[in-house]
């Protein structure tokens, strides 16, 4: 049975979220950046689930479900974009897309 306060779960969620954020900022491989974004989304899912349990409401579950669905759609489109940009290049580095400089 889960503890009577959600603090533990929420801290795990916060830590995972932070790790995801740092991953987006630090890594230059676009695929790994994308994976970090997925990590962030899952951390948020965890916190939604936690609140669904502790506030005794099914709304949290619905949110998780919808986030999941949208994340899936996002992954599909995002990977298609990454593939189409980086297909013709020699090395994949997000910092090479800097034509909006200035």
């Amino acid at each position, binding site marked *: 049975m889960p503890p009577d306060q959600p603090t533990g779960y929420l801290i795990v969620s916060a830590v995972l979220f932070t790790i995801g954020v740092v991953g987006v900022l630090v890594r230059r491989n676009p695929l790994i950046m994308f994976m*970090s974004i997925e990590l962030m989304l899952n951390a948020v899912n965890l916190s939604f689930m936690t609140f669904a*349990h502790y506030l005794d409401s099914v709304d949290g579950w619905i949110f998780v479900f919808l986030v999941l669905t949208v994340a899936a759609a996002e992954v599909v489109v995002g990977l298609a974009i990454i593939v189409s940009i980086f297909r013709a290049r020699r090395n994949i580095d997000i910092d090479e897309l800097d034509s909006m400089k200035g």
Partner: protein
Amino acid sequence: MNTSATFAFVALGVTATLSGLGVILFRNAVYSALSLILNLFSLALFFLLLNALFLAVVQVLIYTGAIMVLFLFVVTMLAPEAQETEQRDPIRWQKGAAAGLGVILAGGLSYILFSSVISPAARASTANSLSKMIDQFGSIQAFGMGLFHGFLFPFEVTSILLVVAIIGALVLGRRASKD
């Protein structure tokens, strides 16, 4: 709170954190993807701990099953090009700033969490008595009732969203045709 639940929680927490760190720290993209699979799996077990059977299974099926497979496809497709991308960072201060800001973020969130508690009164006031529904109908049925009774419209819109995503992916994935 019984010890086995606590032990399970701690173990799962450690696993999730370590695999999360693995995602961002491995040089090899395939290792990162595998780390992420482990992370998603441990999250599914978290969901189980929280009494959400359906969603735990959905997480495993869709996230780890479909999405991560897709990721692995793309990683291996672009792998020959993913040589030594991690050369000198053009933005030298980015790593330090990211680390610092990450610490601040985590600290801020934790502080908020520690300084607030959910009172039983709040729990009682917002309750849709999910636990009662689970006891009465079972977990999946409770989820279905919630989805189709209150959130029908978002559900339909989401299906349209999925169609749009498929079409977008098809269009983006085409090779530039010479016509």
